[in-house]
C-alpha cells in the first residue's frame, strides 16, 4: 500500500446518458435576428423583446471576465453555440399525456418522476430540459394558496406585471458579461411568487437537464417573497457526458420584502469532464438576492461537485434594516476541475448581518478558489459579518486559494474572517480504518465532518444526497 495520499480513478458519472429525441434547433450563432426569432417563438410581449435586445446590444460591447478569476480555459466561440434548442412537441401541452414519453422517462431515470401518481412527496418540481420547461408538478395545489410556481415562459405570458416589475431588478442586464448574455437569450427557467404572509408548505424545486451537445443552457429563475412570506427552493442539475465543453450561463434573482425569508439550496452535479479534463460544463452563473425589506433574510446553500469550470458568487444585497444574508458552500473539485466561487455580501441597511461559511475540497489536479467580498457601506451602521473559509487538500497536485475582499466604511461595523487549510492525514485514515471503516468510508466521513456546518443547512433529503455525492466524487482519490 502506498504511503502517499494520491489520486486514482473516479467512479463513473451515472447521469451521463443521452436522450434520443427530435429537436427544434435554431441555427448556430447569435445576432438580433436570432433573438427576435426566439422571442417570437415563445410568443413574448414587446417589452420582453426590448429587454433582450437591450441586453444583447450591451453584451456585444462587453468582454469575458478572463483575467481576474483563477480559471483557465480555451476561447469560447459564441457564434458556434445553438441558443435555442427545444424538444419537438405540440405547441401547447395541456397535460402530461402530451409530453413526449421519452422526456418523462429521462426525468424518471434521473430520479425526478413527473407523473401525478409518482410525485416526490413534499417537493414541487419544475423540470427543465435543454431550453424549455417540460412540466411543473403540484402547480394547482400551490395555486390555491396564491403561490405561483411555473416556468418563466409561462410567467411572462400569464403574469407579465409581476415579471416586468422584478426581472432584472436584482441582476441588471448589463451586470456582467454572462448576465448580459443570459438576459438576451434565456429560454426558460422557473418563476416563484409567494404572496404576503404565506409560508410555502413544500419545497419548490427546479431540475435542470442539458441534453443537446450543441446547445448552451441559459435559464433564468426569479423568486419573489412578499411581506412575511417564506419559501425554500432547491435546484439540481445534470448533463450527459460529451467530450466537448458546453456552456451554462444562468441568472437567478431573489427578492425578499419585509419579514420575508428565502432559502435557496443547490446541489450542482453537471458533468465535470473526464480525468484528463476533456468535456464538461462551463458553469458561469450569476445568482443574487436582494433583501429589500426590513428583517428579511436570504440564505444560499450550495454544494458544488460538478462542472469543468465553476464561476459563481451567489450574493446578497442587504438593503432592508436588520436584514440577514447567509452563504453556506461546499465546493469540491477533482481531476482537472476548476472552481472560482464564493459570495458577495453588500451591507446597505442598518444592523444587517451576514454569515459566510465556505468549505473547499480539492483533489486530483484541480484548482479550487474561494473569492468573497464583504462590503459594508457608510450608512450600514452596526453591520456584522462573519466569514469562515476552510480548505481541504487531498493529494499534492491540487491547489486551494482564498481571496477575501473586505471593505468596512463605518466605525460601528465589524467583519471577522477566519481561514484554515488542512489535509486528510494518513493518521486520520488509519485511525478510522483501525475502527473497521473501509478507506472510502473513512474519507467520506472525514469530508462530511469537514462540511458539517454546510450540510446541516440543507433540507434533510438533500443533505443525504449531497453526502452520498461527495463520497462518490472522491471515490478512489485517496490510496
Amino acid at each position, binding site marked *: *500500500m*502506498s*504511503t502517499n495520499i494520491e489520486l486514482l480513478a473516479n467512479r463513473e458519472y451515472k447521469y451521463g446518458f443521452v436522450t434520443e429525441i427530435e429537436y427544434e434547433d435554431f441555427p448556430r450563432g447569435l445576432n438580433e435576428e436570432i433573438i427576435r426569432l426566439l422571442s417570437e417563438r415563445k410568443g413574448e410581449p414587446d417589452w420582453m423583446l426590448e429587454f433582450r435586445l437591450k441586453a444583447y446590444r450591451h453584451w456585444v460591447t462587453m468582454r469575458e471576465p478572463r483575467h481576474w478569476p483563477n480559471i483557465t480555459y480555451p476561447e469560447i466561440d459564441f457564434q458556434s453555440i445553438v441558443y435555442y434548442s427545444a424538444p419537438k412537441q405540440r405547441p401547447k401541452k395541456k397535460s402530461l399525456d402530451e409530453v413526449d414519453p421519452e422526456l418523462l422517462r429521462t426525468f424518471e431515470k434521473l430520479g425526478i418522476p413527473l407523473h401525478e401518481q409518482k410525485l416526490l412527496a413534499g417537493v414541487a418540481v419544475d423540470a427543465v430540459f435543454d431550453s424549455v420547461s417540460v412540466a411543473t408538478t403540484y402547480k394547482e395545489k400551490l395555486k390555491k394558496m396564491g403561490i405561483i410556481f411555473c416556468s418563466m415562459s409561462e410567467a411572462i405570458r400569464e403574469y407579465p406585471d409581476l415579471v416586468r416589475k422584478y426581472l432584472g431588478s436584482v441582476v441588471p442586464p448589463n451586470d456582467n458579461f454572462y448576465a448580459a448574455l443570459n438576459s438576451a437569450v434565456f429560454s426558460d427557467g422557473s418563476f416563484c411568487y409567494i404572496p404576503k404572509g404565506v409560508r410555502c408548505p413544500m419545497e419548490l424545486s427546479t431540475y435542470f437537464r442539458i441534453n443537446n451537445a450543441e446547445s448552451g443552457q441559459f435559464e433564468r429563475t426569479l423568486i419573489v417573497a412578499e411581506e412575511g412570506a417564506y419559501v425554500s427552493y432547491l435546484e439540481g442539475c445534470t448533463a450527459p457526458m460529451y467530450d466537448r465543453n458546453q456552456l451554462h450561463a444562468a441568472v437567478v434573482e431573489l427578492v425578499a420584502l419585509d419579514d420575508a425569508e428565502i432559502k435557496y439550496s443547490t446541489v450542482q452535479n453537471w458533468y465535470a469532464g473526464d480525468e484528463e479534463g476533456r468535456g464538461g460544463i462551463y458553469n458561469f452563473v450569476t445568482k443574487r438576492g436582494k433583501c429589500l425589506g426590513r428583517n428579511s433574510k436570504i440564505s444560499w446553500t450550495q454544494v458544488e461537485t460538478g462542472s469543468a469550470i465553476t464561476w459563481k458568487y451567489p450574493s446578497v444585497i442587504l438593503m432592508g434594516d436588520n436584514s440577514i444574508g447567509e452563504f453556506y458552500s461546499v465546493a469540491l473539485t477533482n481531476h482537472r476541475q476548476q472552481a472560482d466561487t464564493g459570495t458577495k455580501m453588500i451591507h446597505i441597511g442598518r444592523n444587517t448581518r451576514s454569515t459566510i461559511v465556505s468549505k473547499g475540497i480539492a483533489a486530483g489536479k484541480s484548482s479550487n478558489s474561494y473569492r468573497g467580498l464583504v462590503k459594508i457601506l457608510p450608512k450600514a451602521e452596526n453591520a456584522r459579518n462573519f466569514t469562515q473559509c476552510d480548505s481541504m487538500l487531498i493529494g499534492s497536485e491540487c491547489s486551494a486559494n482564498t481571496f477575501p475582499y473586505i471593505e468596512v466604511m463605518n466605525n460601528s461595523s465589524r467583519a471577522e474572517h477566519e481561514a484554515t487549510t488542512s489535509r486528510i*492525514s*494518513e*493518521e*486520520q485514515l*488509519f*485511525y*478510522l*480504518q*483501525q*475502527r*473497521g*471503516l*473501509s*478507506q472510502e*468510508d*473513512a474519507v467520506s*466521513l*472525514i469530508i*462530511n*465532518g*469537514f*462540511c*458539517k*456546518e454546510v450540510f446541516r443547512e440543507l433540507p434533510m433529503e438533500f443533505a443525504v444526497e449531497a453526502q452520498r455525492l461527495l463520497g462518490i466524487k472522491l471515490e478512489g482519490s485517496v490510496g
Partner: protein
Amino acid sequence: MLEIRNLHATIDDQEILRGIDLKVSAGEVHAIMGPNGSGKSTLAKVLAGHPAYEVTEGEIIYEGKNLLEMDPDERAREGVFMAFQYPVEVPGVSNAQLLRLAYNEKRKHQGLEELDPLEFKELLAERAKLVDMDLSFMSRSVNEGFSGGEKKRNEILQMAVLEPKLAILDETDSGLDIDALRIVADGVNKLRRPDNAIILVTHYQRILNYIIPDYVHVLYRGRIVRSGGKELALELEEKGYDWIKSEAGVTASA
C-alpha cells in the same frame, strides 16, 4: 490466537523491529515494556496494519489466518483493536457517529443486523458506564478538544463498544490521573473474557496492579530481550532498564 514469528519491520528503510517472536493465547494478558524508542508502538501499529511500515521478514498468524495479508479495516472487523498512544482528532464527526459506524461495520461483517441510531444509543449509554464517561462526550467531535486523559478513556470506550478479540493498548495508562487509571483498568478488566486477549504496552508497573498480566516482555532495540511473569515488571520498576540493556549488549556481542 496470535503468533508472531521472527517479525522484522522497517519504516523509511530504517529497521525498527528486528526479529520478534510472541505467542498470545485466548484469555491471556501480555504486558510489553521497554525504553523509549525500543519499538513498542511500532509493533502495535504493525499488528494493526499501519501502511507506513513494511514487514520485511517473518509472519503473523491471527486466528489461523495470515494477518499481514489483511487491510487494516479487515483486521479491525476480524477483532483486532488498537488503542492509540496518540488518539487522532476527526473534526465534525461526532463520537457517537463514529462509534455507530464502526459498530455496524462489525455487525455487518458478522452477518448481523445493523443497529439504528436509537438502539445504538442505548448500547452506547450502557458501555459508557464501563469507563464512567459522561454522555456529553458522545455528541462532541471525535477527540477534538479532549484532554489527554479523556482521549485515552475514549479509546477504551471504543474498545468497550467494539468488543475486540485482540486488544492492543498502547500506553493507555499514560496521562491518566490516579482515579481515571483505576476506572479505565476496571473497565478493561470487565471486558476480559476467556476468549479474548490483551497486549498492554506500558512504562509503569502501576497499571499492572489492576490489570494483572500473565506475561511481561521487555522490548529493546526491536527485539524481545526478556520475558517473565508479573514479577518482572516489579524488578524493572526497581532496577530500571540498564541491567537489561547491558545483558542484551553482552548477548548481542557474544
